[in-house]
């Protein structure tokens, strides 16, 4: 099953950041493989007996290559190049600033809190503050997620509700406008999914977090997605780029014990390259002679695993073709589905041969249901909903029955929201089918691996 290959890799790890936890992490890794500890500023605490190389006062200027063979440019000029296999960023933990009104002098006001994209430390603090303010003021909270996963969190939330705090839970960003009046009045417009409509709130003050200037951002040259929240969902600090890790807990609320645990987990994560060799599965490959160098895959790859390789063995017009790095590729198959030149082929054919299937499913979404499904509809598994291409859907349409495309829920996609892409493809194909006077046969279903056979059956019935 599958095709595997051995690769030589650079075992060295770059730990980037000058916080004490960066030092502890670097120290832990140094026991198993070479480590370079670097940061734009020298730590302000004494460093003694650090076993690896240290570099201070340089910036990350550029990054080339992939996991196992990164080349990092350290600026400013003169540039220095550094070769490492993996990178761990340790951002300086800092909480965003929330400017709370004074609870003793503020009374009878309308206060609107916007608590979105916050860590639990800040959230806990905000919850107790707004609860106190709610005694003498009217408080409304607009939040992306009601967080209670901290000490006494549930109690704090209940307390706030009892004091009349209204929570609006929404993923839609609110629009705040300042009315030109004395005293100033803020108008906050936000979509409330519970009501299914826009609501307009007025407030004497709007309290929303400002990122702390101390907080270490992520260097631009690494091309990591900007919302750190998204980055940090995968424990322990895995990002969408193979070989680049980010220390979780950007607000610094971990206990020492938790931190030790994270350090151990991250050290074992990078240890897979410690021997300088790695065996890995190859999922997809580009047939260079067909590659039109359109860069579709290069631009869309959720893991940035694609590089342009120029050499004379590329038998296409350009002597250059896109190349999937086997170590950086996580096998989602998006490139296969999107390649307009049909130059990308899956190497493991076992999942691809299932004629007559009308359920095309992301294997993560469908989970154990795939094995338990009683039929009669046959299921064809894909590594991700992003790999279910238009031609695969049309192949299924040929059977004459309805076609079900199954994807993960938004937050659960391991490959950066490919569920949206799959949904968009279903809409497109349905539009085309309708244009040709054919029934809109493509049904899009969201499923989670925790769902049961009955759930899938029910969702399929709903779509009929």
């Amino acid at each position: 099953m599958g095709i595997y290959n051995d690769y030589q890799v650079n075992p060295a790890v770059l730990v980037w950041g000058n916080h004490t936890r960066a030092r502890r992490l670097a120290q832990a890794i140094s026991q198993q493989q070479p480590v370079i500890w670097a940061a734009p500023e020298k730590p302000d605490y004494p460093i003694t007996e650090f076993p690896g190389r240290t570099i201070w006062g340089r910036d990350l200027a550029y990054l080339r290559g992939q996991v196992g063979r990164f080349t990092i440019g350290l600026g400013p000029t003169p540039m220095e190049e550094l070769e490492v296999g993996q990178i761990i960023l340790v951002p300086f933990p800092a909480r965003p600033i929330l400017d709370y009104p004074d609870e003793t002098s503020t009374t009878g006001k309308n206060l609107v809190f916007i608590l979105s994209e916050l860590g639990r430390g800040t959230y806990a603090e905000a919850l107790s503050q707004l609860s106190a303010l709610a005694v003498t003021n009217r408080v409304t909270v607009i939040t992306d997620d009601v967080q209670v996963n901290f000490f006494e969190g549930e109690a704090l939330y209940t307390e706030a509700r009892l004091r009349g705090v209204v929570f609006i839970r929404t993923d839609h960003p609110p629009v705040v406008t300042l009315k030109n009046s004395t005293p100033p009045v803020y108008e906050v417009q936000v979509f409330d999914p519970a009501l299914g409509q826009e609501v307009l709130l007025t407030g004497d003050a709007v309290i929303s977090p400002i990122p702390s200037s101390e907080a270490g951002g992520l260097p631009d040259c690494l091309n990591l997605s900007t919302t750190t929240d998204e980055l940090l969902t995968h424990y322990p600090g895995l990002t969408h780029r193979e070989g680049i890790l980010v220390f979780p807990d950007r607000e610094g609320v971990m206990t020492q014990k938790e931190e030790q645990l994270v350090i151990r987990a991250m050290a074992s994560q990078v240890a897979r390259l410690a021997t300088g060799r790695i065996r890995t599965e190859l999922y997809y490959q580009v047939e260079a002679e067909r590659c039109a160098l359109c860069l579709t895959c290069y631009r869309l790859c959720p893991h940035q695993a694609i590089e342009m390789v120029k050499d004379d063995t590329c038998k296409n017009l350009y002597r250059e073709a896109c190349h999937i790095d086997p170590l950086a590729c996580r096998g989602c198959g998006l490139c296969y589905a999107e390649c307009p030149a049909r130059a990308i082929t899956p190497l493991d054919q076992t999942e691809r041969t299932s004629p007559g299937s009308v359920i095309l499913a992301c294997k993560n979404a469908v989970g154990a249901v795939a094995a338990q499904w009683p039929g009669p509809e046959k299921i064809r598994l894909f590594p991700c909903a992003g790999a279910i291409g238009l031609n695969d859907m049309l192949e299924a349409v040929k059977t004459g029955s309805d076609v079900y495309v199954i994807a993960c829920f938004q937050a659960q996609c391991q490959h950066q929201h490919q569920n949206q892409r799959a949904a968009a493809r279903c809409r497109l194909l349905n539009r085309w089918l309708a244009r040709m006077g054919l029934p809109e046969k493509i049904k899009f279903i969201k499923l989670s691996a925790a769902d049961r056979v009955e759930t899938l059956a029910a969702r399929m019935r709903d779509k009929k």
Partner: protein
Amino acid sequence: MIIGELKPLNEIAAKVQGYKRILVAGCGGCVTVCQTGGAAQAETLARLLALTLDEPKTTVEWISPTRQCEWEFIEPLREQVQNFDVVLSIACGVGVQAVAELLAGFPVLPGLNTTFMGMPVQPGQFEERCQACGDCILDLTAGICPVARCSKSLLNGPCGGSQNGKCEISPDTPCAWQLIYERLELMGKLENLEKLVLPRDWSRSRDGGPRRMVREDLSLDDEE
């Protein structure tokens, strides 16, 4: 690069009505890059047509030469069309004409509307950048073409329809002259705007009739 968009599928289906053996021909050039006429799209179109035209009486197959606008790449089509009644080309208008000329007399239908010359500004979004007017003035306008990107192709803009940096035709269309102003400001060359650009010679554009370019050293025409 040339951007094309698939014709409405009902139109395509109507065009191929009556043909029994259809060959959908993609192109590996520009329209592959813009995801409308590549091998994968040729396959998709072939599959869609096969659904409406009742199989098995009709056969729909697809191919995709490297570029449809050059004789060498489409020469194999002479052989390949032997088993077909019609070619449905999803190359740009240049490709369709090249194939039609090569197969003179054989029905060749366009499946794509060639829309403009542009670039992918971000994945999946293509914007017009050049109109092949034949007399480039990008040096005067800080590298932003007013002929292609101003709705009125004004050479001395902006006009009164420029509002908040957007063109009056749509809030999604940036005003080219606003962009030019901003770029010139960045370059410290705002005085360029004070120079009046005189009416240009449109005979080098489409107004002069179909255009032709000859490179003497490459051309084999005998002169002497």
